[in-house]
């Protein structure tokens, strides 16, 4: 049941995007997110759609799998869309009771929805094609310059990879304990809020105990292998840029250029018309 949460889970196939350097993908995701926030006209969204569609195509992950991740933000999406739809001032199209729907409202709500969907899908393209370990390796390397000002970047990224690594383990553990308690007649679904919260005790107590046990075991295992932090540590698979990464960075530059141009386009046109 809870195994169905797919947001941010690695999808194990082989594609150009899967083979790409994690730093390239991290940077690309950042560019994409920034570009979504400078977008404010239809051309911007057309370009973003083309870029995102191309990325999805290259990743070879089924679209259905990506859209599944949207379920998690559906509620947020509905709220922000309805706020924008009903509360934006402007030219009225129609009204139901006190709710006014305006032309501007439809426009902002539509763009807002697109922006949110693209944010989620865009970042899941990265997480679906990058293993958690690659991701933190990429982060550690890209943020390496922070070490100079004594930010313990290695330790932070190690903590992150451990946390990420433990998500599926804890999900599985939860599933197992849930089933074990259900076999003893537990009911996690019915009842009011207080009863529901109470019914979670037999789930959370064993889960916490097992999480602590795993944590001490892991600490022991790391110490047994002489782990002592990032100082002087080398990698088995050092990150190295290849040609496809260069191609990707060029694509980002081109994409960002197009986005900025598209954003300025209406203003420029406006001015030209005024000049004439």
């Amino acid at each position, binding site marked *: 049941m809870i195994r169905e949460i797919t947001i941010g889970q690695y*999808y194990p196939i082989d594609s150009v995007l899967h083979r790409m350097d994690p730093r390239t993908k991290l940077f690309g995701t950042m560019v994409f997110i920034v570009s979504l926030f400078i977008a404010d006209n239809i051309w911007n969204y057309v370009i973003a759609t083309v870029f995102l569609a191309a990325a999805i195509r290259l990743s070879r992950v089924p679209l259905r799998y990506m859209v599944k991740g949207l379920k998690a933000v559906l509620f947020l999406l509905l709220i922000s869309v309805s706020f924008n739809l009903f509360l934006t001032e402007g030219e009225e199209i129609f009204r139901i009771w006190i709710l006014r729907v305006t032309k501007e409202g439809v426009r902002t709500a539509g763009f807002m929805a697109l922006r949110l969907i693209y944010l989620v899908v865009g970042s899941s393209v990265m997480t679906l094609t990058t293993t958690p370990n690659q991701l933190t390796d990429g982060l550690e390397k890209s943020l390496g310059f922070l070490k100079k000002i004594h930010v313990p970047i290695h330790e932070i990224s190690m903590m992150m990879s451990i946390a990420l690594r433990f998500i599926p383990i804890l999900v599985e553990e939860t599933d197992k304990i849930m*089933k*074990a308690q259900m*076999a003893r007649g537990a009911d996690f679904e019915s009842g009011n809020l207080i009863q529901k919260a109470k019914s979670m005790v*037999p789930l959370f107590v064993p889960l916490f105990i097992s999480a602590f046990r795993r944590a001490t075991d892991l600490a022991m295992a790391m110490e047994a292998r002489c782990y002592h932090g990032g100082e002087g540590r080398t990698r088995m698979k050092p990150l190295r840029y290849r040609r496809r990464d260069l191609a990707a960075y060029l694509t980002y530059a081109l994409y960002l250029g197009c986005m900025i141009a598209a954003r300025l386009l209406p203003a420029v046109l406006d001015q030209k018309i005024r000049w004439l």
Partner: protein
Amino acid sequence: MSIRAEALTYIYNEGTALEQKALDNVSFEIPDGQFVGLIGHTGSGKSTLIQHLNGLIKPTSGKIYYNGSDICGEGYRLKDLRSKVGLVFQYPEHQLFEVTVLADVCYGPRNLGLSEEEAAERARDALSLAGMKEKYWNQSPFDLSGGQKRRVAIAGVLAMQPEVLILDEPTAGLDPMGRDEILEQISRLHRQRGMTIILVSHSMEDVAEYADRLMVMNRGRLAFDGTPRQVFEHYRELEEIGLAAPQVTYLAYALREHGLDMRTDVTTVKEARDAILELAGMKGKR
């Protein structure tokens, strides 16, 4: 009164790259009061199969009948089923959560809607059945040893007073003595209370000693199904799927290869001893 499975198929993550067929067209019937050993290599589908039997997993296709009624049918009360088919998971001690042993064992009966006194009554019964001494009943379950924790967890399922008891590797990670004690306890439940037992294991020795019937799983399919003797005759095929017959079976075959008139249908150490003594007796050396 029986458990019957018809063409059970179960697929994990259907329609994705992670798709995996855990059960493939499995059919069988387990009559009342049988002691069944379910064996198979890791990932052969044993655990998936037993979770179907008390309705924790719904089959992708196929049907399961308990006492003649379809447990996937609409309106079937799964909660009733779970009180009749008790399932003890692997490492069941990981599900303990209460402050005292007794309170933890009461959890199941209380979920069945019994009163506090009735639940406590059943819990005391179950704890004695599982061989827990009374002095431990008011201790925290987390202070007990591994073997004792496991008994408490098994008692937690026994307190539901099931008709069928399914145990997934109940002896995993226990020392030899703890293992024998638990198996002996289970066997006693079978003999004295007439409980149907399904014991999942990959130790052939354990299973051969207690089970009336063996079901061997391989890659989601039922590879062999019969008495231990019948199944162990296929010891070469068993090896191919990563299992093995009990060591005495190998001994018997080896003796036979050396020209001795040894019986090869021995499955336990005791039977092997008797057969060898008989063999020696025939040669007049007793």
